[in-house]
């Protein structure tokens, strides 16, 4: 046995980094990333046109909500489409063959795809959040110019910290969604199935709280059992809505945001581990 081969191949963060960088480069060159980012940026900047509606201080809330909504909607689409393309596209085009013929563990491959895809979505979140903060700042200058009767009359000013924390929580959620899509992609035989199943998962996770309610208040044992199972297995995406943080930046709400981020991180690790396990069974 060759000496080099006799040394077991340990998990290498370096190789994961190489694969992640490659995945990131591939993803940012895709039209879907460029188009989605541009469209979202246009929507966020366009929300400044809400001044025509003359809501006064509440206009800042409208701008923030509009921007956050665009971030959530297009970020979810971008996450699913990009991740499916990065994994499924590589399997369909067979560009995965020379890569897996290298001394690369399948776990490294999946982790590299995860980091590359998530990095793209992080860039998207950062760009949109920065634009939103800029839009709020520009508008706040005119709405709250000069001394005020009382900040409470204008809704307390622009919710900068809330927008920042909201953007960060959405980024965590998109990381979790990336891991879930990788799990689906690890056994899906077509990109269409992977995308459809991923959007279905997204919907289920947004409705997960209803299943939890069914577990607690459902009428039949089947309803309660099904609700309980769904409530346990699927993460609660409604938890990542940072809107409830938009009003204040006190320690209590920031601590809650930290809990939510930790919740997302643990679920992400679990889905990623399952994606690795599933991909290891897959025949290329």
């Amino acid at each position, binding site marked *: 046995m060759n000496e080099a081969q006799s040394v077991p191949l340990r998990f290498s963060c370096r190789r994961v980094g190489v694969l992640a960088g490659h995945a990131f480069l591939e993803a940012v060159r895709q039209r879907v990333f460029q188009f989605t980012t541009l469209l979202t940026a246009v929507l966020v900047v366009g929300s400044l046109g809400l001044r025509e*509606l003359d809501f006064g201080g*509440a206009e800042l*809330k409208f701008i923030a909500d509009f921007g956050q909504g665009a971030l959530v909607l297009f970020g979810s689409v971008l996450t699913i489409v990009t991740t499916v393309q990065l994994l499924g596209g590589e399997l369909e085009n067979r560009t995965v063959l020379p890569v897996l013929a290298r001394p690369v563990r399948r776990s490294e491959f999946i982790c590299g795809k995860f980091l590359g895809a998530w990095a793209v979505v992080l860039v998207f979140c950062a760009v949109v959040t920065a634009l939103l903060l800029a839009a709020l700042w520009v508008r706040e200058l005119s709405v709250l110019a000069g*001394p005020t009767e009382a900040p409470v009359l204008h809704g307390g000013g622009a919710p900068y910290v809330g927008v920042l924390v909201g953007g960060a929580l959405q980024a965590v959620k998109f990381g979790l969604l990336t891991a879930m899509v990788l799990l689906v992609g690890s056994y899906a035989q077509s990109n269409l199935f992977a995308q459809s199943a991923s959007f279905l998962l997204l919907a289920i996770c947004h409705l997960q709280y209803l299943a939890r309610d069914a577990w607690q208040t459902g009428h039949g044992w089947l309803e309660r059992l099904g609700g309980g199972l769904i409530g346990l297995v699927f993460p609660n995406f409604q938890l990542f809505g940072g*809107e409830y943080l938009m009003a204040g930046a006190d320690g209590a709400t920031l601590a809650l945001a930290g809990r939510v981020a930790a919740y997302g991180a643990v679920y992400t690790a679990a*889905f990623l581990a399952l994606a690795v396990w599933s991909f290891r069974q897959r025949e290329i």
Partner: protein
Amino acid sequence: MMRRVVVSKIWTWGARAATMVLMLGTVGLALRPLEAPAWAAQVRQQPSLQWRSVEGAMGQGLTLGLLGGFRALAADLLWLRANAGWERCDIAGTSAALALVAAVDSRPIGFWLNGARMIGYDMPFWRIEAAGGEATLPTAVVCHVTEAQARAAIAHLEKAFVHHPDHPLLHIEIANLLLQKLDDLPGATEHYRLAAQQPTAPYYAARIYAELLRQQGRERAAYDWLVALHPTLPPERENPYAMADTVLARIRELEEKLALAPASRYQPRRE
């Protein structure tokens, strides 16, 4: 052989699915203590997460918005719908939209305040006009409609206290309705007092409380209140909204009215 293949395939896929469900279920269970406080905070602030409260929204094109995590945006769009109904003087449509807005997103105080204004000030006018106008209707009917809408607006505002305990603007709005529509001077005075006591209250709340006390003949109480208020106000040149000079002028008027001895009169701090 065929059955063995099918059974083997089902067993393989079933085992995989069961493993995933078991693992994710265990993770979900382990994360409940982490999730619970954050979820409780969400539910407290967003009644739309309680399904029954927004059943009326289903079928009004809000399903995707509510279920997709776009509650705040859905509420904004509902608010636009309420304003569109207001422009058409549509009582039923506006009322329904206002109720939904509050249910979907209870955080913005502006939704509650402006909604109450539509209910308390605009809707009585619409109802009277729809019934023939103030000139044709008996005075008692006009008063009844006005009072009924004012009470409906106050009830709407009182629901807001669940989400915004002791918010000064809610107290002020209730006070204005009591004063202008129900002629309830003592009730309005009490609400202005409650408003003025909040640290985020606008400066005028304290001034109006004093004025209402004076209108009820309680000049001494008004004087004591203003004397306690004036030292807390920033100088006029720093914040004209505080109107420190106006408050001082009111103090002097009351001193004259109460015929206070010069020695016992209020001495403002030197700047």
